[in-house]
């Protein structure tokens, strides 16, 4: 690993600090701007003013906003994400536990979507303006247009309920029972795969069309290489670079939680944690979730950038 690469890595890592700081400020301010009070939600419609004041004091919500922010930030800096106002649980272990669930689904789904979408996009580009191309593009657009919750519910009702092939609620780990785990994960993974496949197919296709028009591809064909060889060896590596960037963005987005799917399939993931926390005005959990998500986003994109030279050597040279 060259020193310039290490310097680049260090520079990128340092840039994450102001980014995360900005996110922290925004998250904190926005949460306080939303009407609603966690103490009030806990007390419900029968809480008295005294009870409300007591609970607010217990949560530290009676302190000035700047003091609250300072305390939260200093705790965060020491790795203490605080405790949930609703359940009293430590936030960081909670985030990590829930992240595992979301990440397992997202990584498999995005991996599968990539495996399917890149060849499909490449093939559609190669067959541009043919019936095959139209079918692939129409399919991609179709899945791109469907809301994930609707597709999830359809699969749930048809595959889970009507056919009875898989259970409709639940989750177990692979270490407990790999068959059951697979049966619980298959529907959310299929849903997410289909949705993400649409985006990736379109990107792979348009990139491949651009690449297919370049002179070196014509040259390769002129050399007498087979079409398969041209596509795999000369078109795919160049066409994949923009798709790779998109994969990074998609992963960054999805790893922050797939709240809708997690709700539909009753999965204890990060997205559902965040949504529940927002409704409960559970400030430490919301703030922790969003900061964690921002960190993941930054990290994923950093990794994507680092891998970029593998697909496009010009980046490494520059």
């Amino acid at each position, binding site marked *: 690993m060259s020193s310039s690469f290490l310097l680049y890595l260090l520079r990128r890592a340092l840039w994450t600090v102001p980014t995360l700081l900005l996110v922290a400020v925004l998250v904190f301010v926005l949460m306080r701007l939303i009407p609603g009070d966690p103490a*009030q939600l806990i007390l419900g419609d029968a809480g008295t003013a005294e009870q409300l004041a007591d609970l607010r004091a217990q949560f530290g919500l009676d302190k000035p906003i700047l003091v609250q922010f300072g305390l939260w930030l200093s705790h965060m800096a020491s790795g203490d994400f605080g405790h949930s106002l609703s*359940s009293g649980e430590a936030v960081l272990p909670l985030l990590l536990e829930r992240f595992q669930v979301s990440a397992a689904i997202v990584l498999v789904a995005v991996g599968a979507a990539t495996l399917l979408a890149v060849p499909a996009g490449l093939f559609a580009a190669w067959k541009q303006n043919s019936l095959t191309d139209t079918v692939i593009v129409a399919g991609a657009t179709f899945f791109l247009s469907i809301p994930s919750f609707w597709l999830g519910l359809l699969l749930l009702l048809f595959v889970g309920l009507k056919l009875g092939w898989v259970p409709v609620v639940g989750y177990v780990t692979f270490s407990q029972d790999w068959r059951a785990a697979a049966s619980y994960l298959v529907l959310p993974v299929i849903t997410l795969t289909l949705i993400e496949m649409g985006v990736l197919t379109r990107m792979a296709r348009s990139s491949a069309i651009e690449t297919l028009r370049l002179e070196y591809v014509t040259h390769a064909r002129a050399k007498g290489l087979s079409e398969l060889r041209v596509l795999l060896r000369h078109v795919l590596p160049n066409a994949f670079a923009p798709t790779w960037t998109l994969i990074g963005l998609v992963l960054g987005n999805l790893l922050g939680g797939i709240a809708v799917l997690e709700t539909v399939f009753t999965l204890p993931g990060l997205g559902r944690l965040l949504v529940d926390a927002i409704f409960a005005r559970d400030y430490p959990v919301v703030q922790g979730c969003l900061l964690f998500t921002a960190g993941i986003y930054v990290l994923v994109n950093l990794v994507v950038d680092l891998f970029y030279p593998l697909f496009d050597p010009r980046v490494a040279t520059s």
Partner: protein
Amino acid sequence: METRRKNAARPLARLLTATFTLAACLALGAPALHAQPAQDTLRIRLNADIRSTDPGINRDANTDAVVSHIVEGLVAFREDTTVGPLLAQSVTTSPDGLTYTFALRPGLRFHNGAPLTADDVVFSWHRYMTPANNWRCLSEFDGRGQAKVLKVEAKDPLTVVYTLDRPSALFLETLARPDCGGAGVYHRSSVGPDGKWREPVGTGPFKLAEWKRGQYIDLVRNPDYAALPGKRDGNTGNKTAEVARVRFVVIPDVAASKAALLSGGVDLIFDVEDNDLPEYRRHPELVMQSMPTMSLNGLLFQTRDPLLKDVRIRRALALTLDVPEMVDALTEGTAQPNRSVIPRASPFYGRAQSGMPGRDIAAARKLLAEAGYRGQTIKILATKRYNSLFDMAVLTQAMASEAGLKVDVEVLDWATMLDRYNRGDYQAMAFTYSARLDASLSYEMIIGPKDRQPRKVWDTPEAIRLLGNSMNTTDRAQRQAMFDSLDARLLEDVPAVFFYSEMRTSAARDYVKGYKGWPMGQPRAWGVSLARR
């Protein structure tokens, strides 16, 4: 160059392999949700996770429901919403109404095998009364509420004496309230040496086995449970556990919970949404059951609003509403209309409460003309967290428009709406009150001085006086007269229009035997058995 391009295709395959490997590792380490339940496990859907296992502290309705299976109090509500003994064998009140003597049932044991004694009652009580613990009902007993509990003494191992500073008609009722955790008695090992709550070691028919946050709560049968004789009766009576295990499964999404029930993923949904009822009814394998609860849905008016402070406008709006028609539409015909604050299931619900003023558009127009109404907008706040509240606001908007009233509906999330309710910051609001099991408590939720408690809806001196008297009088006939008077005034002053008490409809698989709802609306797993084919 050719070699570099050849090599460049490989990272894609490597990356994908790495991705799947990472996903597999994460899945291996991720937390388990629903291990396959045993045949004798009753699975009940919860729409949200519980907040804690600490009775009456950091709680909500789901928390109360689950905890009531584990921890029991001295007294509890019966099916008819009167109060009966639970851990107590008898309750004796002194003639001056200041001393309550509870004789404990002999032979009761905690889940850890320790015998229940009066000292445990005193220990639990002191923890409840410690302000730092934020017991939901602390203010009811520390002097800020009805009566102050001056002391609680263990006279002997099976006798506890509570001494109050003044008589209270609501002392036992408040002890029994589910939102107060039923003032549940727990073993001191429930609390750590640092005073922090660990887990409930109670005397209930079930023990806590596992709480997987956000996923499920598992309870197992308490084999040593000493059940009361007779039948199941509210939160008291015979609470024998018939099933070996109960799993409360957290499924927030309504559609997913429906699919879970139909596929056998859960056995019971105790709170089916009204607008889903027609679909559930089409499934012969499901057993449906509706039961009126003590909650109350209605339209609140801000009587200090520049427009709505004129009682004629409020009366006019009320006159535009066809309440029976609305209730029929809102509840799929399951609930009966009720304009009183006192729910139909209450023993205090009588003739005076059953009055149902009819719809009269002409009279409404006349009142509006007298009040000089010039088409000003009345904004109703509603939430979609409870669909019925949003529908209620929309129906009100439509009906009021027939008399020329201009009504807008603003939709808020529940937290924001609760905030606005507590600040009294609204013109009108479609609101739901949780169950109050005594008529005074029902009225207490709306009556009070707005200057000190902005959430209160009705603050006329006469209403406040009558409410205060009803709380300090133990004579039933006198109390009934006071409630009758309050109901008549409610229809005159119209600080709110109440529509109905929610019907709680449950849907269970046909092999679930013995499940029955009750006015509190909470699920009860005791007395329920499974006859799976």
